């Protein structure tokens, strides 16, 4: 049973680091500020969620796991505020989205 939880923790760590890497790859490939915010949100939600889930499964039911669970809780509050502020100031300073909308 202990071995099973360790394997589950390793799989979760691999998934989390994959999401972080793909988020930062999107930060380079995407063409615009407003679409890069979408890629940065992937790091803050899924990446931190899976990495912290893996560490909680590894450490068991202790005080350390409670402190670990506080990290995605704070990120869940602060990440939308900061990304909304960045997009608001970018839009008001004259940048427009580059994506073209197809009209039928």
């Amino acid at each position: 049973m202990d071995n099973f939880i360790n394997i589950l923790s390793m799989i979760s760590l691999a998934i989390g680091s994959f999401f972080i890497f793909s988020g930062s790859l999107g930060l380079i490939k995407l063409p615009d500020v407003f679409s890069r915010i979408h890629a940065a949100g992937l790091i803050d939600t899924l990446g931190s969620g899976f990495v912290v889930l893996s560490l909680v499964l590894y450490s068991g039911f202790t005080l350390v796991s409670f402190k670990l669970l506080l990290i995605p809780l704070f990120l869940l509050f602060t990440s939308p505020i900061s990304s909304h502020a960045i997009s608001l100031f970018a839009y008001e300073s004259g940048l427009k989205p580059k994506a073209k909308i197809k009209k039928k």
Partner: protein
Amino acid sequence: MIFFAALTILALAIILCIIRAIKGPTPFDRILSISSIGTIIALGIAVHGFAFQRPEFVDISLMYVLLNFLGTIAILKFYKIKGKKI
């Protein structure tokens, strides 16, 4: 051993974010990529603590997340919105 592999992938992700922070055409790209670097470093501190058998590093990671948010908002205070005072 899987922790060291995860730390390597996080370091590669930080290098990609630094490329965007150097190359970015507008200041908002740079602010966004610095914010992402802060989040990745906060996760990396926690993973590093578990890799070297010292899980007390979680406290530093928790503080890093909060200071990262404050830094982003503090840099954005330098920009203005037309007709509004912030």
